[in-house]
């Protein structure tokens, strides 16, 4: 018996963590105790809060951590505002996984340079934890991450405690705006990247952030000698279905929900500039 692909599964929010003044991380489990679905790092899911609506979010948890999904969600519009009001125990709808996910096989054996800004650590975090949980399969891991201010850094425990203590793993943080409680770097991510100047040899880089950050990070990476095939990023578009039918997330002949959200710079260069 075929099923309606637009029908979500019922899931329960089992934990809500406040990350920043406008970001919360929601842990979600199947209402019947089983697995919601298998997924790859970088894939997304449609989250429904009845009666408000449904939207696509990247899954921020790693598939190596079994039994739940996590979504880090910034309070932005009508649905996310309502999501920020819910308490653990709230039942929601989840369907997925959607999208291609990160090319974990291609990345195997390479040194990895993650470059993230603001809430866009969410999709990177799934891959970071995936790689760190399969530590022997990947080379050195460097994480460059920035936010508007120190209080806008998400996933602080991982940034400050869990990730830096692992071997061959370093976290480089920067904030746009100085504050009394911040002793680290102050400056935008692209400038910080050029200052750190990691060599491109043997490396793949995965970047995710606000469009303006991505634009300048890509320019910096090109200047530093990174090849477009080794530069990976993610795109976001408004989506209603997640399955290539509602017709609004295309860039040229590619639906971001099916062919994306993960693209290499080499792939992006072949698409029209409409994102």
């Amino acid at each position, binding site marked *: *018996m*075929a*099923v*309606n*692909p*637009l*029908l*979500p599964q*019922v899931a329960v929010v089992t934990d809500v963590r406040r990350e920043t003044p406008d970001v919360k991380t929601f842990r979600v489990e199947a*209402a019947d105790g089983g697995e919601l679905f298998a997924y790859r790092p970088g894939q997304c899911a449609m989250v*429904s809060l*009845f*009666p*408000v*609506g*449904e*939207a696509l979010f990247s899954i921020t948890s790693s598939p190596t951590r079994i039994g739940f999904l996590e979504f880090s969600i910034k309070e*932005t*519009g*009508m*649905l*996310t505002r309502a999501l920020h009001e819910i308490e653990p125990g709230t*039942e*929601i*709808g989840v369907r997925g996984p959607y999208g291609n996910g990160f090319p974990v096989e291609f990345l195997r054996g390479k040194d990895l340079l993650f470059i993230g800004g603001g809430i866009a650590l969410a999709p990177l975090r799934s891959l970071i934890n995936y790689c760190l949980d399969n530590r022997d399969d990947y080379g050195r891991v460097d994480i460059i991450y920035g936010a508007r201010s120190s209080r806008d850094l998400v996933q602080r425990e991982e940034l400050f405690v869990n990730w830096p203590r692992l071997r061959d793993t370093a976290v480089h943080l920067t904030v746009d705006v100085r504050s009394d409680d911040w002793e680290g770097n102050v400056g935008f991510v692209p400038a910080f990247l050029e200052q750190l100047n990691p060599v491109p040899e043997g490396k793949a880089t995965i970047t995710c952030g606000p*469009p303006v950050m991505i634009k300048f990070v890509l320019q910096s990476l090109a200047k530093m000698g990174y090849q477009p095939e080794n530069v990976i990023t993610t795109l*976001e*578009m*408004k989506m*209603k*279905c997640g*399955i*290539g*039918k*509602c*017709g*609004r*997330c*295309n*860039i*040229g*002949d590619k639906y971001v929900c099916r062919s994306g959200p993960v693209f290499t710079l080499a792939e992006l260069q072949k698409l*029209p500039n*409409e*994102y």
Partner: protein
Amino acid sequence: MKKIAKTKLQELWQRLSAEGALHLPVRSDRVVEFVRWQEDVSADLDALNAFLPPKKYFYPQTETVLKYQFEDTLQLTDVSSLAGEKTILFGVRPCDAAAFSLMDKVYLGEPVDEAYRRRRESTVVIALGCLEPEETCFCLAFDIDPGKAPGADLLAADTGTELVFIAQSSKGEELLAKLNGVLQEATSGDENKVKDAQERAREKYVTRVSVHGLAEKLDTFFDSVYWDRLYRRCIACGTCTYLCPTCHCFDLQEYAAGRSGERIRCWDACMFPDFTQMAGGHNPRPTQKERVRQRFMHKLNYFPRQHGGEYACVGCGRCVRQCPVHLDILEVIREMGGAVDGR
């Protein structure tokens, strides 16, 4: 091959309506629409295109995709299994019949849209060949023959005083077999009349354009200044998309009533600013230029690239006739170098 005198059509409608919900084009108040047949309603066999395309039978303008209810726990009910009333669709023109197979590529492609599949399978499509294409018809450009409709279950051909029926699928054959008492056997003379009518329809064609190689040409047309000129006329009314038999974009909205409600799918249009507007404020198609370009590029380049070279246009001419500012896809095709190869 069977036939019936046009004077006996009421008898045919009667019999067909016993086999399923019969829908056919009916004129009322100057507009021809597909509606459910009732006693004493007569079909309009002359109007070429119904105002709204018959895609609504498989992909309704609004439909419930799920129901939800908060009891002790959240209950989600899939209503797609309720779709698919036995339906007979009479009088679908060849362009609209061809559009069904384009729509199939979207909704029967993985993952299959269950409600659409059920409606499609429970419907017998009876196409009606065109005798005299209008000035705004250009189905021939897409290799659609105005007198033929190979994707339909049955083809009806108007030979003057009679309608001749040709089965084109097992569903069509089954239905034809059930109409034995009403229909007569057609003769080889009738077969010739059908062929003549089909031939004449091709000859009467006035608007001749070619889309040969157009998708390839458009590969490098995205950044053309042509779009800067073209879009200025567009008033973003969305008429072109709602009347288009191949436009398939939708929105999902919630309709709440206390502790329960429905999620509704409804037609949406790439002509509207909020179609791609994101919550954070960014819009990848910020002006009408990008939206107009999206519509034409989707029909003539993106869709062919996604679906084995087939254009998402069947030349029905609805958008050409109804666009309030005459933003004409024929003009676009010609401008892009689609050759005018006829009169």
